[in-house]
């Protein structure tokens, strides 16, 4: 009965989405207030029914209802409770339901936090999101019903893929989807602005916080995914350029460009059509990612369920959504004004360069990800001969991606200290002079101190310190201009949050680069055959192998190694790497044991038993590896700081007052009020 309620709730949600995707849009076009007013309650109703449906599937998982096909395929009675809850998104159908849940959460958020927006805008934004929702609800109901019954019921389930039975994975997909789907809000704002024909600074200001929040979630989601692959997939790699990873990375790259482009549109009114295009791209890439992961056109370790028939559905959906958006863009964008002019070297031009670099980076990732597909298709239609095969893997991505990012990082330090409209190059050079010289000196010397010198390490350190010094310079200059009668801490707290957020996020990039560089250059790893009592020394630590014991898990049997770590003869830690065999799927899994610290990880994994109680053991010393994820966290926190900026709240309040007083909002100012940007507009 419960699964049927879940299915029925989905159908009700679809009906509501249909209303939401039509009436408010027509109402906004024809000026019918009652139709526009429908948008909010219908979106909220849809949220309620999607939650009901999701709860029903979760219920079926928790109670191990194996008469539901999806549950039988992805759960097992021995599966621990947490993975029964997380198992809901362990396969295609459930992931899709999670996607829809996220979309309805975002719609609910729009209904709640949009009181300061004109009715027309709200109706259009929710209308566009409603249409997206219609597409996904149709997809799940007609091709991927998670509530399909299995009669007679299976005696037990086939268990969740062991790779997914991990706490990291319990939170990774929700975070990632929250980010993915979050770009639908920026997309809906862009389409709403195109529909309304009013593309201006106000629109940018409204959609900016939404974009930042989505970007934060995506950043955290990708970082969690990377962390997961670090300790579950294998021997400590943190990024594999796998098609599914790329699918989440492309929207992130474009989303990063979008955040920066929105800043220019808001402050200076420039790049309007470009910003709209980026908003369309960011969401299109999210949809494309879904297509790639779910259609099976590319094979990947992550594509746990793929089906060409579903691929066709998503492709058609993609064509409708992206095709119509781009047509609308081609129709409306030419009428958009150019906004404020700017000189060859100015903050605008630097941000434009940043946008171009990030978009190029996304394009190269797209090209690399789809290369096998392109070649196949060209061979199939006879354009290319069958011998023209190419291969694309990590080597390609590292080769094209790193140089692009090098330029982006260089500009990242220059951009924030450049003036709007027209920057003075000699003056900027003077301000960055010491930071530049010092970072070159550090980049030359530091590799020697760390062990041995290499070009790649030196370059990475140069990039990181270049950013660090530029951030320090920017902070210092800002602090000097604040009132000097307060303490330094008070002055720091007095700086605009959006400025602090930007600096923190940029600092996060530096931390990330340091992590990547140092782990790439100074990781030490040993493969050793160890018998009980044997020791091995790696990175100044001594590891003693104290044998392996057999430990039963809830749904697996584990061989648990006992390894004691000593530093200078002093016992430090006992590590327990495991080799697990999951009972149902008979798949062996390597669970590494990690002693994590801020400056280094000690990573131990069990290999194979090699007889007489001996095992092959892998021991790693990984310096600064945690900085990779620390950097991501700092980027996300930077976003959080930026959206907590006071001007968003004052802005919302003013807009509400304006709305209440019945003022005509149809002609919002094209340039922001000086009071709101005082802090940013100063050199």
């Amino acid at each position, binding site marked *: 009965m419960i699964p049927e309620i879940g299915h029925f709730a989905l159908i009700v949600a679809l009906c509501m989405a249909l209303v939401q995707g039509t009436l408010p849009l027509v109402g906004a076009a024809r000026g019918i207030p009652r139709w526009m007013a429908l948008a909010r309650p219908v979106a909220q109703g849809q949220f309620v029914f999607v939650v009901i449906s999701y709860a029903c599937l979760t219920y079926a998982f928790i109670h191990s209802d194996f008469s539901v096909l999806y549950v039988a395929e992805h759960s097992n009675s021995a599966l621990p409770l947490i993975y029964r809850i997380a198992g809901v998104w362990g396969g295609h159908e459930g992931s899709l339901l999670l996607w829809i849940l996220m979309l309805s959460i975002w719609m609910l958020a729009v209904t709640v936090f949009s009181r300061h927006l004109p009715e027309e805008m709200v109706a259009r934004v929710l209308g566009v999101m409603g249409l997206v929702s219609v597409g996904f609800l149709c997809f799940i109901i007609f091709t991927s019903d998670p509530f399909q019954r299995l009669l007679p019921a299976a005696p037990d389930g086939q268990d969740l893929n062991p790779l997914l039975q991990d706490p990291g994975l319990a939170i990774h997909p929700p975070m990632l989807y929250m980010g993915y789907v979050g770009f639908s809000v920026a997309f809906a704002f862009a389409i709403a602005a195109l529909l309304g024909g009013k593309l201006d600074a106000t629109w940018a200001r409204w959609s900016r916080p939404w974009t930042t929040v989505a970007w934060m979630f995506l950043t955290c989601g990708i970082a969690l995914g990377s962390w997961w692959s670090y300790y579950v997939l*294998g021997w400590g790699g943190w990024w594999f350029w796998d098609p599914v990873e790329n699918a989440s990375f492309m929207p992130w790259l474009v989303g990063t460009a979008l955040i920066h482009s929105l800043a220019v549109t808001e402050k200076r009114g420039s790049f309007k059509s470009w910003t709209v295009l980026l908003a369309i*791209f960011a969401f299109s890439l999210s949809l494309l990612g879904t297509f790639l992961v779910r259609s099976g056109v590319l*094979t990947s370790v992550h594509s746990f369920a793929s089906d060409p028939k579903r691929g066709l559905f998503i*492709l058609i959906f993609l064509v409708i959504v992206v095709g119509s958006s781009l047509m609308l*863009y081609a129709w409306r964008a030419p009428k958009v004004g150019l906004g404020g002019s700017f000189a060859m070297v100015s903050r605008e031009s630097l941000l434009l360069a940043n946008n171009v670099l990030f978009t190029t980076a996304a394009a190269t990732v797209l090209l690399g990800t789809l290369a096998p597909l392109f070649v196949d298709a060209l061979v199939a239609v006879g354009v290319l001969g069958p011998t023209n095969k190419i*291969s694309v893997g990590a*080597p390609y991505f590292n080769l094209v991606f790193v140089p692009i990012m090098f330029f982006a990082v260089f500009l990242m330090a220059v951009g924030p200290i450049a003036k709007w409209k027209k920057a003075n190059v000699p003056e900027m050079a003077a301000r960055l002079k010491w930071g530049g010289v010092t970072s070159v000196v550090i980049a030359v010397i530091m590799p020697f101190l760390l062990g041995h010198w290499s070009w790649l390490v030196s370059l990475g350190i140069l990039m990181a310190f270049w950013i660090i010094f530029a951030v320090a310079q920017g902070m210092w200059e800002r602090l000097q201009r604040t009132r000097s009668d307060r303490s330094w801490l008070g002055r720091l707290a007095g700086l605009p949050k959006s400025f602090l957020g930007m600096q923190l996020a940029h600092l996060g990039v530096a931390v990330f680069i340091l992590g990547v560089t140092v782990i790439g250059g100074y990781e030490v790893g040993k*493969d050793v055959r160890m018998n009980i009592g044997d020791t091995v020394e790696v990175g100044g630590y001594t590891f003693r192998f104290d044998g392996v014991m057999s430990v039963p898990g809830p749904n697996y049997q584990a061989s648990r190694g006992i390894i004691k770590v000593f530093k200078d003869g002093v016992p430090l830690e006992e590590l327990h790497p495991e080799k697990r065999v999951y009972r149902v799927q008979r798949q062996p899994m390597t669970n590494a044991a990690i002693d994590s610290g801020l400056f280094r990880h000690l990573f131990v994994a069990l290999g194979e038993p090699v007889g007489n109680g001996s095992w092959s053991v*892998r021991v790693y010393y990984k310096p600064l590896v945690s900085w990779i994820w620390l950097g991501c966290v700092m980027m996300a926190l930077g976003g959080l700081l930026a959206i907590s900026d006071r001007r968003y709240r004052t802005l919302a309040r003013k807009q509400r007052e304006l709305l209440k007083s019945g003022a005509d909002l149809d002609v919002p100012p094209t340039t922001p009020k000086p009071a709101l940007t005082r802090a940013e507009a100063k050199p």
Partner: protein
Amino acid sequence: MMRFLIPLVVFVVLVGFLWKGLALDPSEVPTPLLNKPAPAFKLQELQNASQTLSPANLRGKVWLLNVWASWCVSCREEHPVLLRYSRSGEVPIYGLNYKDTRDDALRWLQQFGNPYVANGFDTDGQVGIDYGVYGVPETYVIDRQGVIRHKHIGPITDAVWQDEIMPIVRKLKG
């Protein structure tokens, strides 16, 4: 006006490829080498650089050539399957270690186990190009006369092994 149409045009082209790609099953693309002699090569063995691996020396037996790399995530997925079936001894699996470094590859085998009789170390990918490798993992079934009889693209699963590869191997073994 025209420049605003560019994104749409690019998208249409992209959709063309996706549409075509959907019609093709990536694991069923026929190889031009099907039923042709396997391209000859002579490669250093991965685990023993003084030895070489060459298809010429494998004449007279039915064997699998599995293309893999330590940087390939999907290889990790198929690895337990290969390991399990390599123990059955039904058909010898030879590896082509593709665009990899020796350290990484050896570490990989030690970490995840070694299903291969021997591995050719194709560090610059030349042999891979001769075989038309464009995504790892790929697996070739080669018969007693050294002719490629089947090619599987993408990771080998239990189903692929039992329903696709073994029937061909059994037929070839006669």
